[in-house]
């Protein structure tokens, strides 16, 4: 495989970690013991029997499930089998991603299935007992639908720092039935962005339709495997330590078809996993490596990502809590575990608990946006526009997040301290000391332009009012004016001819 020359490079970091070697080893050991002693409650008969053949101890339960206990040798062999490099393709080759486990190169993308699309209208308000007036964002909550998904994909295409697209809203159109959701959502996404498209699968029955859409776009069966323009997320674990029938089945079928898939788990520390760091990370790691083991039993060498979405619960209502420092701990630890295993990491950052853009959202997002990628995850999802603990997608927030991630990417750049820079420093200092004004301003000029010096905040306001949300909204409207780069007419026509159930209102050529 060629170097990243033709893909989105992201930013290569010198990774930080929370855990030392012996602590990583301890987590690994604890996960193995969990899988050896407690095992996974598996609701998929097929998975249980495959795992049994592979050497697991399988004990039937009375509720149609079985307990699968994993020998450590099997897990370690399967982890070895999982490829350390996974290619995620794209309609435009320059948008493809080469994820290498040993290379801490960070990319950011959207995610994932919010119910609400938060529309915003700037409105003018007048002071009650005075003359002053102010512009203020007023929000409307729209239910996700396929047209809003098209809009979101189009917006995400324009966001400079967004490296891949995971569908941001789920589609709740009354005229699209369950069986046709997958084809509609993948087509809506792929037709509006030329970046990599990833999503979960609603119905196993539509897997082949979706793959067929990918084949038509990529130019054939083999071509899709070489340039997988789409890939899948399967959260096979239901924490604690259960494999659900539906998603486990989907994962196995995706793997059989040679498509890349994320094997993920998303426990809540304090409700479905221990809240303590050791407990949370040992359990989620056990769930993920058990899933990866199953994938490699089904098809050795199958391209999978280590999908860690560890969340903390809040104690007032046991709902998810993303803006918590522990969220960062858990995620960083998982990134270190994935690196230890040599499997590319699908990680998580940037979800706000806040319901609308503003100070709270910014605080919550910035801690995880800035800190988690420092650990060097190859693929950071949830990073754009998500609010209200993933229930809401706000396109204006996505624009704000793009600016924030721009800052983070710059911050993560490797230091430029070397002999040449030292030479330049000496001659610069000698020169400046010879002037009357003693200012280094002239030496900033090229750096300002080649991007080595970062500009001030994109949405700063010169007046004392903070208009960043309104300015981001304006920017979004500007970005939406850029004409979408649809698939070509013949490709779209072919897709509509072959794939039943696609709604006409998202066909740009109809």
């Amino acid at each position, binding site marked *: 495989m060629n170097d990243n020359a033709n893909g989105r490079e992201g930013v290569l970091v010198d990774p930080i970690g929370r855990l030392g070697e012996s602590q990583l080893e301890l987590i690994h050991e604890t996960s193995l013991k969990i899988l050896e002693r407690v095992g996974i409650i598996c609701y998929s008969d097929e998975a249980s029997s495959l795992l049994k053949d592979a050497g697991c101890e399988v004990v039937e339960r009375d509720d149609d499930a079985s307990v699968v206990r994993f020998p450590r040798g099997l897990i370690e062999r399967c982890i070895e089998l999982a490829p350390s490099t996974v290619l995620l393709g794209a309609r435009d080759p320059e948008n493809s991603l080469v994820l290498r486990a040993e290379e801490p190169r960070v990319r950011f993308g959207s995610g994932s299935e919010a119910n609400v699309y938060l529309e915003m209208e700037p409105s003018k308000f007048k002071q009650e007992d005075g003359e002053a007036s102010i512009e203020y964002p007023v929000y409307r909550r729209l239910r996700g639908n396929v047209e809003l998904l098209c809009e979101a994909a189009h917006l995400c295409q324009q966001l400079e720092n967004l490296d891949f697209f995971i569908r941001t809203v789920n589609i709740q159109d009354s005229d699209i039935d369950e069986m046709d959701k997958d084809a509609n959502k993948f087509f809506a996404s792929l037709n509006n962005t030329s970046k990599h498209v990833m999503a979960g699968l609603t119905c196993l029955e539509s897997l082949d339709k979706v793959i067929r859409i990918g084949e038509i776009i990529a130019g054939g069966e083999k071509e899709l495997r070489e340039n997988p323009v789409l890939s899948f997320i399967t959260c096979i674990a239901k924490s604690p330590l259960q494999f659900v029938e539906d998603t486990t089945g989907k994962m196995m079928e995706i793997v059989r078809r040679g498509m890349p898939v994320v094997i993920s788990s998303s426990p809540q520390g304090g409700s479905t996993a221990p809240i303590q760091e050791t407990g949370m990370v040992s359990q989620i790691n056990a769930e993920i490596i058990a899933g990866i083991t199953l994938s490699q039993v089904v098809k050795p060498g199958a391209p999978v990502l280590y999908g860690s979405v560890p969340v903390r619960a809040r104690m007032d209502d046991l709902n998810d809590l993303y803006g918590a420092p522990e969220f960062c701990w858990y995620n960083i630890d998982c990134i270190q575990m994935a690196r230890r295993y040599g499997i590319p990491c699908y990680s998580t950052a940037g979800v706000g608990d806040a319901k609308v853009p503003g100070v709270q959202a910014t605080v919550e997002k910035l801690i995880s946006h800035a800190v988690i990628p420092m650990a060097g995850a190859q693929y950071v999802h949830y990073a754009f526009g998500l609010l209200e603990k993933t229930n809401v997608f706000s396109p204006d927030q996505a624009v704000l997040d793009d600016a924030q991630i721009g800052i983070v990417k710059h911050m993560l750049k490797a230091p430029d301290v070397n002999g040449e820079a030292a030479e330049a420093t000496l001659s610069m200092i000698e020169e400046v000391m010879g*002037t*009357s*004004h*003693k*200012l280094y*301003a*002239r030496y*900033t*000029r*090229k750096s*300002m*332009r080649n991007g080595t010096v970062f500009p001030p905040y994109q949405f700063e306001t010169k007046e004392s009012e903070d208009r960043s949300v309104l300015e981001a909204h304006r920017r979004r409207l500007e970005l939406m004016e850029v004409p979408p780069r649809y698939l070509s007419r013949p490709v779209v026509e072919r897709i509509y001819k072959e794939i039943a159930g696609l709604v006409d209102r998202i066909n740009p050529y109809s």
Partner: protein
Amino acid sequence: MKGDELLQEIELNVVQGRRNSSDEGLDEDLSGTPGVTELVEDALNRGIGAKGILVDAISSGMTEVGERYEKGMYFLPDMLAAAETVEAAMEILEPYLLKAGIESRGKIVLATVKGDLHDIGKNIVGLMLKGTGYSVIDLGNNVDPDDIVSAVVENEANMLGLSALLTTTMHQMSETIEAFSGVGFRDKVKVMVGGAPISSEFAEEIGADGYGKDAFEALKLADDFTDI
């Protein structure tokens, strides 16, 4: 190179902010090729008049720089780099201009007041004034009121610019203005003041003639005071 080509070359190097051949410039790496000082020397040696160099190369270069700034193509460091080329060129041209009886646009004495060491803002103001053709006598920082007054009188400056960044030193501005009363030169000089704690109200209160919030306002004041 023909004469007018040489003038064009000077103009281009002003725009690029290249004082001499070791400066690299902005659009491309031009280091090694002659910069403004070398080109000005060359022009003078070929008998091109100092006034022509000033008007047809240097001023027109600065006009171009100003336009690029207006359009957002240039930033303050680019203006300063260009202003430095003008400063360097003026050092060479000054004796020739004097001989030809051509006066500078106006003459300003600049200083940060007594007790105050902050001079970044004042230096920017000074560079920009030089860059637009004013003759600037910079006394530095922490300057005694009497020394400021003597410098104004000796140099027959038509303007004085005072800078203060501390609330504890701003009153030195009024002391300085008052120090003129002994020498009676106050009606010949326009005083502008600036620095973060200064305001137009304060300027009025102490009897200054103008307040500038930044280097651009300083330029505008200078133009007003010199009737340009």
